């Protein structure tokens, strides 16, 4: 019987839709995921952050059964993906980092092909594609070849393909990379809308403001291990809710404090420093402080 437990707090809480326990994935001798344990709650918009090569994409590939793993267990909607991968796949939709549509087919054919392979009943396929295309605003592009569309529309078409079988959880791996600001904002609205309609979202991104803006909870991964998990506010509080930013020896430095008064005391003893800023700590501060790396870098 599926027993929803939040693995990190060890207590019965909101139902978890993904449970990873001590997962290890190695490429040769190098562990891309090194004992990863985490749970994603049903219905939440979960953000997954990490520097390049931290294991974000590998984690998605492992959960979505694209890549095998050597140790641990992964359950999706209570189904062990090693024991029953085909049933587990019914619950998942994945938008990969690179657009993964078949460029030799039209958008409609891509959607229909996905619907068939996900075994959507024949009498529902057309209706479902039409509904999703209307929802996303793709209707007028359906009979065009993939390469005649801009990156934003291709991404939207990929989202329709991933949603055509009504998955419970949607993985979005760096969905806004390469999109212009307008397309990115439209995609944010779409992600929020899908989440409001009940789809659990698992989002990875290099854009930290994207994660901060959209996500209910955030996990930070580094060197294949989860190093922090919580709401954006909880993570900021871990570092200190107030940040002081100042220049010293031609370098920008940061100090974090639990409250504003402590920050002011620190600033008052800073001699010969200019460009001193006191502000609220943001997720980027937290990320850099916890991983020791800049976003997207090592």
């Amino acid at each position, binding site marked *: 019987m599926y027993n929803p437990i939040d693995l990190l707090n060890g207590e019965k809480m909101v139902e978890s839709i993904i449970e990873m326990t001590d997962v290890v994935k190695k490429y040769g001798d190098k562990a891309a995921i090194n004992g990863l344990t985490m749970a994603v709650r049903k219905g939440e918009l979960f953000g997954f952050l990490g520097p390049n090569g931290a294991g974000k994409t590998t984690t998605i590939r492992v959960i*979505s*059964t*694209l*890549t*095998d793993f050597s140790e641990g267990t992964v359950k999706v909607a209570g189904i062990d993906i090693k024991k029953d991968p*085909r*049933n587990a*796949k*019914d619950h*998942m939709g*994945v938008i*990969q980092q*690179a*657009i*993964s*549509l*078949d*460029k*030799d*087919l*039209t958008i409609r*054919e891509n959607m*229909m*092909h*996905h619907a*068939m*392979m*996900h*075994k959507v009943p024949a009498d529902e396929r057309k209706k479902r594609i039409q509904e999703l295309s209307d929802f996303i605003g793709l209707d007028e592009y359906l009979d065009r070849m993939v390469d005649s569309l801009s990156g934003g529309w291709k991404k939207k078409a990929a989202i329709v*393909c991933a949603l055509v079988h009504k998955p419970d959880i949607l993985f979005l791996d760096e969905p806004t990379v390469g999109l212009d600001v307008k397309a990115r904002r439209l995609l944010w609205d779409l992600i929020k809308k899908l989440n409001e309609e009940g789809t659990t979202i698992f989002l990875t991104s290099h854009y930290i403001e994207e994660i901060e803006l959209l996500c209910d909870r955030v996990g930070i991964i580094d060197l294949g291990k989860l190093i922090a998990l919580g709401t954006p506010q909880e993570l900021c509080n871990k570092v200190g809710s107030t940040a002081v930013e100042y220049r010293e020896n031609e370098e920008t430095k940061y100090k974090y404090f639990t409250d504003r008064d402590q920050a002011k005391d620190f600033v008052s003893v800073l001699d010969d420093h200019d460009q001193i800023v006191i502000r609220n700590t943001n997720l980027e501060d937290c990320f850099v402080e916890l991983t020791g790396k800049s976003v997207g870098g090592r």
Partner: protein
Amino acid sequence: MFQTIKDAYYVAWGDMCFMKHNFWNILVSSVMSPLLYLLAFGYGLGNGITMEGVPYIAFIIPGIAALTSLSASFSSTATRLNVQRLYYKSFDEMLMCPLSPASIILGKSFLGLFRGLVGATLIYILGMCVTSELYVTPMLIVSVVLSCFTFSFLGVMAALLAKSHQSMATFSSMIILPMTFLCGTFFSAAAMPAWFQAILYALPLTHSSSIIRAAALDWSFPWISLVVLFAFCVAFFVIDVYLVKTRRI
């Protein structure tokens, strides 16, 4: 079994759309090289020659049909899957669908099967117009279908193992090209030295040529070659399923 075939159809549906968009291109490219072989070797080189008691043109047409089953089946399956896997990444989407590895492999081999059958059939019909020595027998149909399946599965295997487009080209140069010219398509394998025959009979196209030729010319049918080719077909299919199942791709 029925579910596997149904799922294979779902997988193949995308390739059917691809064929619909590229129908003339596929048709012309399927018959172009066998037609050139027929003109160059059949008429240019082989005019007036007999081989194993039949005019060379009658000898070579079943060989070219076997060769077409190899080249059209292998290249169309391998090229499209290689592009889908390494460049479009759309093969990953297939792997994330609730489909069995067997249905994915069967579905992906459909394009090769179709192109191989079209190419071999067209060249055979053309051959029947120029010589009266050729027959259509049930074993001919079985042999051509088995050949097309075998080389489609080989194409899937090559595409699953390829690390880049370059490695696909290397596979073609090292495996497919030598088979094209050496495996009894243009001459009898029996004409080669004994040690070399041993190598040739370890290659599937030799058996494919042998059974297609025997069935086409109504010669004594080499059942052992049929069994060996069937074993190649099963082996390629099993390897393909293993590669997909264990994600060693």
